[in-house]
Structure formats: structure tokens, C-alpha cells
């Protein structure tokens, strides 16, 4: 434990009688405290209001066989500390409920409802305790409980339609969109209440692509689970894969060779640039400025081709593995990387000049889909969307991983929170990423690139965070017997940010929804898992 967190932990021990618990955590940057359920609300309020900490995620674990009870985990972090504070709370007497924080911290609204659906624990005091992850008429069984075998086939149950809150009032109409959309995007249902063109409010229904990923992790041996991690969200394959491997490495207590860390950093930044360029084009496309999209797509393709030459996969899959990376680059590949990045930088500057020169595009994007900083803070928005609304968070800087400690980069933060500034954050980040890659590619990438990973003893816990291109990705694991996982919790930034879309579209006209949605570009698969 470093000095900075010490007073905080001490205060929690004094005020709430929390106990520090050794959890066989591999590293010093996770502190586990045990607290009692009735105190949770006070602890959360104390940490967020007085200590300026942030509740990162909430998740549950079925520990009934080992410790006789369900546990909830509340992960906190605060600016300036590289550590994560994990408050571990056993379910109170009766064992099937927990205290909800959603009324105070709307950021955990969906995550608490997931716990309800997946573990059968009731969130006491939740303002909207309806099902979020499972079908509305799902029977009273809970898939992430240990007594739910993964091959269970449920008897067919009558489908009951999800009830949206009705939109009432003269001239108010309900416009349902989805779950199947035009174009190549994933399913999600949007129910707009509109008065003419302006949107009164938007209701979302996600989880159409729920695949039981967290449960699947418990069935796979660790070396194969990496591939599952890579498929959590297709456009963030490398980020999720790297986050998972970091967690495994921490649990195994192995050091990853520097060469591998630098290569991971380069690949993480390549993934960020690819997606940001694609998004900049897509935003321009949604306001009908097609030329910019044509150039952005062309640039993205050059990077996809580079990806393939570097890793054998356009989406960077199959490269990361526990202990490092699978392959090392030869000089030809490194030259290709440097050459492509230099050529890209020049073309990217032209693309941005083109976008900035189009006044009609700027007119469409400025002051469209505003997410106010105070709302963003309440909703716990992370990543690109957060930084465009004054939320100064970046895991790369706040909790350095891979080789980020060695590079200096700027984290762009804007206060305006409109579509234009979400695009501007992306533009700035691409430029920073290009700088990181240039510096990193000058390392001599030789020698050891994959440390051997021994079988990991059971009951080791590890938390891992990665700044994916969308934002903060969290993986938390507990190892089980036979080199399998006992639990793997995944939090994709999309899960935090969907409520931001709801907030940002209010008061805008319905014709602007597609571009607002695109400026967030959230993953359905990552949300639904």
C-alpha cells in the first residue's frame, strides 16, 4: 500500500470498522477491504463526496460453497492514486439482497440490475428494479450462480413483451426503432417519445446479444479463455484481450518482458487510431459529408492492412497471450510500421483539414447532442464521451499498464460535450497515439517476448484495467482449481455510457439521433456480453 491511500483506508477502518483483507492479490495496487452491507451507502457517500473517489464498478460473486454467502464488490479509484480500492461486502442476513446505491449513484443503475438478474440478489431501494439483462419473463433461475450448470436447457417460457413507459400527451408519439437496424450494426431497441421532431425522452432496451460470456469464462481453461476475451467486443479485441492477459499475469505473479509490453502498447494505440479514424468518417457520413468518410475509410484500411502484416489479423486478434505476445516483429515489419505511421500522419492531417474546412459539417455537429459535465459525472461516463464532457479520466495515465509509464502524452479534455467535441477528442487522441507509437517503435524490440505462465493456484484474485479506445475496460478474475477461472467479471465502457446517449439526445430532433449515437459509438456486444 502506498502512502496516498493510507489515510483513506485508515478512515474507513475507523469510521466503518472495515477490515483490510489479504486476497492473494498479485500486486500492491489492489486493496481489499471488508465492510458490512448496511454501511455500504455511507461508505460510498463518504468516498465519493468527501474523498473525491469514483465508483468504478459493482459486481457480485457466488461464494456460497467457499464462504457460505454471496459477496458484492465495490471498486473505487481516485485521481492521483494508482491503486484500486475494493470494498468487499457479504450479503446480509437472509443472503439474497443488498443495499442499492443507484438512487445516490445513477452510474451503477444497470450494473446493480445485472446482479439482480444474474445472481438473484435483490437490490433494496433501487429506483427502477426491472430486469435489464434477461428476458422480462425469465423464470426464477440465475445463470451466474454456481448451482446453475452452463448446459442447462430451460423449458420454453411464454414471451412477454418488455413494457416501455408510455408516452402520454397531446401530439406525443412513440417511435420504436430496432432491435433490428438498417446497415451493419448490432441489435438494440430504442423507443423514442417525440412531440413533432423534438425528442422528449428515449428508452433503451439492450442485451439482445447476451451470450453468457462471464459464465463461459468459468468453463474454459485459462489459455483458451484469451480467445473468448478477444471476442467480447469485436472492435476492442486487443484491448479486451490485453486486459484479460494482464489479470492472468497478475494472478500468476509473473513479470512480462519489456519487449512484449512495448509491443502491446503499440498495438493498443493502433487499435485506438483505427477506430477513431473510422468514427470521424462515420460522424461526417451521418451528416451527409460523404467525402470525408471516403477518405477516412481509405485511411482505416491502410491501418487494417498494417495490422494484418504485424499480427496476421486485421483486428489484431490472436497476438496477445498471457505472459506477453505470441510473435515478435522482424526489422521489415518494424520498418513497415514506422513507414505506415508516418504516411498516415500526413494523410490524417489532410483529412482533419477537410473536415474542419466544411462549415456545413461544423454547423451540424456543434451544439448537437450536448452531454453536460455535471450529468456526465453523475452517470459515471468514461472514455471519449467523458473527456468531451469534462471528465478527466484516462487509465493509461491514472493507472499505468503495459509501457505507458515511459511515454508522455496529453489527455484531451473538453467541457462542451457536443458531437463536435467528441469528434475533437478523437482527433487529438489520434495525434497523441501517433506520437506514442513513433516513440515506442524506436525501442529495439528484441529478446524475450513471452514469459512462461505456470499453472495458477486457486483463489487468487486480480483486477486489470485498460483504456480501450472507447474508455475504461475492467476485468476482474478469481482463479479456481485446474487452471480454470472461478469468476471473471468484465466491464466494457459501453455499459457506463449508454445512459449518456439517453441524456444527450433529449431536446434534440429525432433526425439528429443517428449522428449523436454515432458520436458515442457504443458496443452492443460489449454491453450485453
Amino acid at each position: 500500500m502506498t502512502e496516498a491511500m493510507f489515510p483513506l483506508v485508515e478512515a474507513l477502518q475507523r469510521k466503518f470498522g472495515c477490515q483490510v483483507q489479504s486476497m492473494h492479490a498479485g500486486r500492491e495496487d489492489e486493496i481489499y477491504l471488508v465492510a458490512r452491507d448496511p454501511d455500504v451507502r455511507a461508505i460510498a457517500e463518504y468516498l465519493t463526496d468527501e474523498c473525491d473517489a469514483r465508483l468504478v464498478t459493482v459486481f457480485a460473486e457466488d461464494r456460497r460453497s467457499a464462504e457460505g454467502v454471496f459477496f458484492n464488490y465495490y471498486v473505487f479509484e481516485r485521481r492521483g492514486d494508482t491503486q484500486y480500492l475494493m470494498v468487499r461486502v457479504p450479503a446480509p442476513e437472509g443472503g439474497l439482497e443488498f443495499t442499492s446505491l443507484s438512487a445516490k449513484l445513477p452510474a451503477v443503475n444497470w450494473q446493480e440490475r445485472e446482479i439482480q438478474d444474474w445472481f438473484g440478489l435483490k437490490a433494496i431501494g433501487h429506483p427502477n428494479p426491472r430486469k435489464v439483462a434477461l428476458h422480462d419473463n425469465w423464470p426464477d433461475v440465475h445463470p451466474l450462480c454456481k448451482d446453475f450448470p452452463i448446459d442447462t436447457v430451460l423449458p420454453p417460457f411464454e414471451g412477454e413483451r418488455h413494457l416501455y413507459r408510455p408516452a402520454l400527451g397531446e401530439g406525443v408519439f412513440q417511435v420504436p426503432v430496432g432491435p433490428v437496424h438498417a446497415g451493419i450494426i448490432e441489435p438494440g431497441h430504442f423507443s423514442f417519445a417525440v412531440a413533432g421532431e423534438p425528442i422528449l425522452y428515449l428508452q433503451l432496451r439492450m442485451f439482445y446479444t447476451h451470450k453468457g460470456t462471464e459464465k463461459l469464462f468459468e468453463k474454459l481453461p485459462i489459455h483458451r479463455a484469451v480467445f473468448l476475451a478477444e471476442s467480447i467486443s469485436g472492435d476492442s479485441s486487443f484491448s479486451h484481450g490485453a486486459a484479460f492477459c494482464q489479470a492472468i499475469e497478475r494472478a500468476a505473479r509473473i513479470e512480462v518482458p519489456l519487449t512484449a509490453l512495448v509491443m502491446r502498447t503499440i498495438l493498443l494505440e493502433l487499435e485506438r487510431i483505427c477506430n477513431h479514424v473510422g468514427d470521424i468518417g462515420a460522424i461526417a457520413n451521418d451528416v451527409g459529408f460523404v467525402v470525408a468518410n471516403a477518405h477516412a475509410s481509405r485511411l482505416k484500411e491502410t491501418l487494417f492492412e498494417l495490422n494484418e502484416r504485424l499480427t496476421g489479423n486485421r483486428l489484431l486478434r490472436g497476438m496477445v497471450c498471457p505472459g506477453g505476445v505470441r510473435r515478435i516483429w522482424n526489422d521489415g515489419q518494424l520498418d513497415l510500421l514506422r513507414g505506415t505511421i508516418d504516411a498516415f500522419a500526413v494523410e490524417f492531417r489532410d483529412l482533419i483539414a477537410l473536415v474542419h474546412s466544411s462549415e456545413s459539417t461544423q454547423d451540424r455537429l456543434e451544439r448537437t447532442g450536448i452531454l453536460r459535465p455535471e450529468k456526465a459525472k453523475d452517470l459515471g461516463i468514461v472514455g471519449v464521451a467523458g473527456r468531451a464532457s469534462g471528465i478527466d479520466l484516462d487509465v493509461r495515465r491514472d493507472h499505468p499498464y503495459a509501457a505507458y509509464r515511459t511515454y508522455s502524452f496529453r489527455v484531451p479534455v473538453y467541457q462542451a460535450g457536443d458531437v463536435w467535441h467528441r469528434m475533437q477528442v478523437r482527433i487529438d487522441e489520434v495525434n497523441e497515439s501517433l506520437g506514442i507509437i513513433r516513440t515506442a517503435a524506436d525501442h529495439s524490440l528484441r529478446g524475450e517476448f513471452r514469459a512462461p505462465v505456470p499453472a495458477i493456484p486457486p483463489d487468487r484474485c486480480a483486477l486489470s484495467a485498460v483504456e480501450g479506445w472507447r474508455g475504461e475496460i475492467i476485468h476482474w478474475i478469481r482463479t479456481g482449481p485446474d487452471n480454470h477461472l472461478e469468476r471473471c467479471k468484465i466491464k466494457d465502457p459501453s455499459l457506463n455510457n449508454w445512459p449518456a446517449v439517453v441524456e444527450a439526445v433529449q431536446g434534440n430532433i429525432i433526425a439528429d439521433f443517428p449522428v449523436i449515437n454515432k458520436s458515442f459509438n457504443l458496443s452492443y456486444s460489449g454491453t450485453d456480453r
Partner: protein
Amino acid sequence: MTETLAKSGFQLLLLLLVAPLVSGVIRTLKARLQTRRGPDILQPYRDLVKLLRKGMVIPDTASWIFPAAPYVVFVTAALVGLMTPMTATDAPLSLFGGVLAVVYLLALGRFFLALSGLDTGSSFGGLGSSREMTISAIAEPAMMLAIFAVALGANSTNLSEMARSAVSQSWRFLAPSQMLAFAALFIVVIAETGRIPVDNPATHLELTMIHEAMILEYSGPYLALIEWGASIKQLVLMTLLVNTFFPFGLSSGWSVSELGAGLFFYLLKLLLLSCCIVLVETTNAKMRLFRVPELLAVAFILGALALISTFLF
């Protein structure tokens, strides 16, 4: 009588055949400017053939308006086409009121299209119809004013008469009334044909559509009729624009050699106008929906100024 029939037949054939071609040319030119290869020029014909051979899905909630609207759209567009001088100064058909009939026949088609959008009860159709009506409420008077500015110069609202007077006079495009009227009509054409910055004909985003949203429920031959009708309407509006303001090459008779020369100049003018439209579409983003009336208000004011300046100069 036979002569009128022959002329009508020729012009109808021209309308039906050239209209998809113009759409195809615009699409291909756009693709080239966007560094894409794009579909080839004949693609709209293939689309029409494909749609005509397909079956149809008709919503249960649809009334008689739904099947009637495609015919109304198609027939009004074709009728207007027959009243417009294309290759020769004499249009084969001349109805009461001349340009007035043109404007209101187009309005009739649009009215039925908007009704059919509402008819099925789908929320997108309703959105599209309400948007279309908002836009046309301003586009229509702007178009009237611009055309009247020209009609005043020719002392007639008959389109053939207007064309004849345009050909016989020396070209006076640089007169303020002509330029203003041209600018107004150009904006109206962009709006009426559903092009950027008003509407995006290539989008797949239902929520942003105008014209496409109204016809979302149509399929098969009905969709073919509507698409064909829409491209004829586009051709007619473009024809009005080029032949009223640039009457070069309009033949005064219907002999074969005159027709050939007329056709050549006509296609050339259409190609040039297509290039202008493509440039506007490529260099602009789509406007925010609520700003579109402002653009059309500009067209309206230009039309009004054109009308006033015919009395001044």
C-alpha cells in the same frame, strides 16, 4: 391529332428512358468524386427491372390510398413531363394554366405520396410525410415566384410559349430577374429531388430520411413506379431549369434532323446540370432539418426579388 399523339409518344419514351439514366449519371459521378467506383450508369434500369419482377408486401393497415399513390405519382410526373419542352420548343401537351398546372400536378403527386406515408400507420412514414409537407410548403411558392418571373418576361404562362420567346429573344441570362429566378429554382430543384443539403438519397438511416421515409413500406412494382416517377419528376425539374434559362439548341420543329440536334444539346445541358448538382452534393453536409426551411426561405426571397426586378429592369 396523330401528330400530337406521335409527339407525345416520342416525348413519353424520352422521359421514361432518360429519367433513370440521369439518376445513374448523378450516382456514378458522385461515387467518382468520393473516390469510389460506384455502380455503373445503367444500374437504375436494372433496379427497376428487378423491382417490377418482384412480389409485393402490402401492410394490413393500408387503405386504397396505398395502392393508388404509386400510379398518381407516376402519372402526374409523366403528364408534367409532356407539358415541358424537352428537345423542341413545342411541348406535345398543353393544359389549362400552363405552369400553374405543372406546379399543381407535381403537388398532387406529392400530396398522395405524403398520404401514403401516413396511410400505413408506421411511425417512419408519418415522420417523412410531415417533413415533406413542411419543406414543400415553402418550396412550392418559391418555385411559383421563380417561374412567374420568367413567365412575365415571355408574357405567357404556357411553357411552350415561354420557350419560344426565350429562343427568339437574345439570351439575357445576365438580367437580374433571370439570375435570381435561376438561383431560386436551383434551390427548389435540390429540395424537390431530395438531394443534399436537404435530404440524403443514399442514407440508410430511417430517422433522417424525408422522401425515403415516406416510401419505406413500398416494395416490388409499386416501389418501382414510385422510384421511376421520382426520377421522371427530377428529370422534368432539371429540364425546366435548363430549357428556361439556357434555351440553346431547342429545335423549333419536329423533323428528324432538328430532333437529333435538339436531343444532343438537351442531353449535354442535362449532363452539365448534373455535374453542378453533384458538386453541391459532394461539397456540402446535409443541413439540420430545422434549417432547411431557412434555405428554402432564401429561395423564396430570391424568387420574389426576381419577380420584382422584372418590373424594374
